[in-house]
């Protein structure tokens, strides 16, 4: 099929029709804003009259649109809209939560009663009451600044760009290619008994592709996924991506991977690009410094943490040059928002997690700071992934700060490596439930010989211990090398919730890191014909 054939017979008016299909959602949002004060009043007054010392009411609408193209075919044109509300109550030191998609006053009274029943059913047998901090009352409005609303861009433009990626890959020699675009808009209305009434809206975008080469004769295949991270941004994030060029490069790199020598396992110096390092930051610094985790709230699922409260202001987490900073205000940050889902204003709550190598602070939601005797209360890290989820502590944007020397680049870090590896692109990831032992792969592992890139390796994974790893960091790129990666779906909680989060990073060098040969790990005695991509869409 020729790429534009599908447009034949479709009038221009038809195309703009599609782009208007979300306009009604914007109108619906205005209608919800009008309805919101009354619904909030119903929930909060009912909760208070039934004995709640605190209550909040969340109204949320999540819209998404996704397009999936496989080779020269568009196989997924999907839209999704989820609207509903929840009531969270605190009664005699116990939480209750209930949610429904039904926005009638009767339904809201009913969920309020369910939440109250859950809280009251704990009376008389709790070991400890839940205590909250007093939060200021805000009347606020926040909207993520974007250039082009992705929900107003025509399907034609989106499809054209996706098929262009696939064509570029196929023309360069890929056997298979898929490309994907996901756009999400979250609208949130929050009211609580402190008196806050907050309305917020944000958009995020995840364009991606994956190319695959097969070699049926040798029985091998190799893939290379795109590096472009998801961002809290408008359509410009996709529009301005030179994906056609990257797809061609990806195919060349996949070919090179198939033919590359299998790595010799052992200790090697490692330079890691931001496109890979963001996920390492996420797993080795982000999750261990969640206070709820450190205190055991996630023990039955995500796990606990090596980073226990007595290590605050004491643990040498990394070398002196390591500074890792948290915020919910960074431009294009996936975690960026005006107020968190407890109603804590995020501006002014930014904080260092690691300062000059020392562990300085945890991520916290409402009421958690007091559990470790910290002043200042929550640092704005609560999030709920939909109307049907209770807010829990989730990650802010957590980023590795540039080194002090602006002249340092990936090239100059590589120049000081005799025998090493330069890793690019997110591969697979795994880490233990207390965040000691990690193992990561990448999309591309370049070989470094005597300070220069020297082809590629295949079958590589790097493995280590979080604290040892950050202490082995002896070089960081300067300001100009800073890039932000991120994930749409960081997983936590029971039931599971997916949170979007960004991680800025500079290229960084780590000395003498344990390198595994994954072909040997899989039990193959001889070097395999494989690469080590993987990961896919699992939760990070």
């Amino acid at each position, binding site marked *: 099929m020729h790429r534009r054939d599908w447009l034949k017979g479709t009038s221009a008016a038809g195309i703009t029709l599609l782009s208007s299909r979300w306009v009604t959602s914007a109108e619906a949002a205005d209608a919800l804003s009008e309805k919101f004060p009354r619904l909030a009043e119903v929930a909060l007054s009912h909760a208070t009259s039934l004995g709640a010392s605190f209550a909040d009411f969340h109204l949320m609408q999540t819209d998404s649109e996704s397009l999936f193209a496989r080779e020269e075919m568009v196989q997924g044109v*999907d839209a999704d809209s989820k609207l509903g509300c929840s009531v969270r109550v605190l009664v005699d030191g116990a939480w209750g939560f209930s949610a429904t998609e039904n926005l009638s006053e009767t339904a809201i009274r009913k969920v309020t009663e369910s939440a109250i029943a859950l809280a009251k059913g704990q009376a008389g047998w709790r070991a400890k009451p839940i205590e909250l901090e007093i939060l200021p009352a805000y009347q606020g409005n926040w909207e993520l600044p974007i250039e082009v609303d992705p929900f107003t861009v025509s399907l034609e433009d989106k499809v054209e760009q996706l098929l262009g990626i696939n064509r570029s890959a196929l023309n360069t020699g890929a056997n298979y290619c898929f490309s994907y675009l996901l756009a999400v808009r979250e609208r949130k209305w929050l009211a609580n008994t402190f008196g806050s009434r907050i309305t917020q809206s944000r958009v995020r975008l995840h364009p991606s592709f994956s190319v695959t080469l097969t070699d049926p004769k040798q029985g091998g*295949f190799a893939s290379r996924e795109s590096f472009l991270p998801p961002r809290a941004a408008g359509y410009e994030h996709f529009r301005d991506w030179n994906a056609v060029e990257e797809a061609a490069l990806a195919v060349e790199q996949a070919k090179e991977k198939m033919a590359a020598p299998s790595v010799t396992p052992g200790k090697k110096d490692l330079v890691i690009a931001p496109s890979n390092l963001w996920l390492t930051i996420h797993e080795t610094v982000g999750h261990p410094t969640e206070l709820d985790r450190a205190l*055991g709230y996630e023990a039955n699922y995500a796990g606990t943490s090596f980073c226990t409260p007595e290590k605050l202001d004491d643990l040498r987490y990394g070398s002196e040059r390591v500074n890792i900073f948290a915020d919910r205000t960074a431009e294009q940050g996936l975690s960026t928002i005006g107020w968190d889902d407890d109603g804590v204003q995020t501006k002014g709550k930014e904080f260092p997690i690691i300062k000059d190598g020392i562990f300085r602070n945890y991520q916290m939601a409402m009421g958690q700071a007091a559990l470790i005797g910290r002043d200042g209360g929550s640092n704005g890290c609560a999030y709920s992934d939909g109307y049907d989820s*209770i807010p829990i502590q989730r990650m802010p944007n957590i980023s590795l700060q540039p080194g002090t020397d602006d002249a340092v680049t990936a090239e100059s870090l590589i120049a000081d490596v005799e025998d090493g590896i330069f890793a690019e692109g997110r591969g697979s990831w795994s*880490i233990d439930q207390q965040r000691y032992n990690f193992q990561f792969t990448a999309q591309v592992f370049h070989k470094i010989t005597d300070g220069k890139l020297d082809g590629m390796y295949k079958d590589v994974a790097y493995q280590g211990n979080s604290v040892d790893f950050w202490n082995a960091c002896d070089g960081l790129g300067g300001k100009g090398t800073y890039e932000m990666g991120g994930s749409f779906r960081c997983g936590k909680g029971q*039931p599971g919730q997916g949170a979007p989060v960004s991680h800025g990073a500079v290229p960084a060098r780590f000395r003498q890191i344990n390198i595994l040969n994954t072909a040997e790990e899989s039990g193959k005695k001889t070097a395999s014909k494989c690469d080590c991509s993987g990961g896919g869409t699992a939760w990070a």
Partner: protein
Amino acid sequence: MGLSKQDFESLGEKILNLVEADGAQLWLHETEDLQLRSANNDITSNGVVDRFKIGITVNYGKQSASIEINQSNDEAIREAVKKVQQMAKLAPEDPEHLPPVEPGDYLTPINFSEATAGMNPEDALKQIRPVIEQGRSAGVDSAGYLERSISSSAQINTNGVFIHEQSTGVKFSITARAAEGRGSGWASTQVTDVSELDLAAVGDSAIQKALASRNAKARKAGRTTVVLEAPGVRDLLSILSWNLGQRNYDEDRSFLNGLVGEDQELIGNQIFGENATLYSDPLYEPAPCGVHYYGIPRKKTMWIEDGVMKNLMVQRFWAQKNGIDPLPWPGNLIMPGEGKSTDELIASVEDGVLITRLWYLRQVQPQTLLYTGLTRDGTFAIKDGKIDGPVNNFRFNESPANVLKNIVASGKQERVLGSEGDSPMHVPPLVVKDFNLSSVSEAS
């Protein structure tokens, strides 16, 4: 819980009456979840959560689009139908698109229980309280999660399909942690009928593991024989099942391509150990599941029998193209066992490791289906057929394909939870040789 079969029928009819496209497929789904989470021997978060979904896929010839909404008022439905039709008209033709499925021969599902549907928050709190108190009196910190779900759905299309299904399920898992000596234990269960639930037994099992795993000794990593308890077996079999697709195999990008020679057939060939059998059956009483996959009937299906690859999952388009029958994604997985007790399995091992559960499994190498992950919440040394105390945890790098070649013995099937997915499964603990414990994890 509101909608009856009749309600689904009339809602479906109402939506189909609005559709002007050539074909349409509807997926109507109502759920009511009850969630109780605990940590540090207290209830933490919880919830009563109602959800409703209307999924609509329409097509004009080979142009197709889908929409999902959760509001069921007339205006929302009208708008959704209008939008999805606009989207479909603008979508490029998909040469692989097929019209909605024809009605099939559907089994009568057995995965619904009135008792489970009747469980309310007060009942659930009453059931969980003694388990939490059990932890307090044993001097451990317990953290757990109980979830009761009721689901009611209808699959409807313009080719005359109407399938109504109801199901219930309860899942429960609990982790007990002993601060002194850094012990940790985990146990779980999953049932269709709440009256089969024995939370105290699960809680007790986690506590016993936590106490027994205190003061772990150091043990080196390396390939060894392991007794893998049912939760870990379930994880590895889930992963394997996600990768049993016919199309990827035909396109030379499956781990299965590496298991047969160039001129060898995969189907009918023994590629795993002869004690490896894996099948699905919606009417399997200990772990039943739904009877269709988007309108395609699910039947009892043998995937691997005595090590011989019997079937792969085939999508509709791929089936049509290759003149074979479609074989849908299964809703459950069953691996028969030899029925030996865990003690008997341990007794058969001279030197090895007993693993309670696996964690954070991620694919490292798709070509060999190499996965990495960790042991967690109760790992013990085995020496001369006996437990020889707790040991540190490990990171493993292993392929489920290797595991199915290296089964030495198997135990009694259990319906438990794992770390990867929660479809019903009934699998035994296994003794597996040459399991690659790749590095030590300090986590406890």
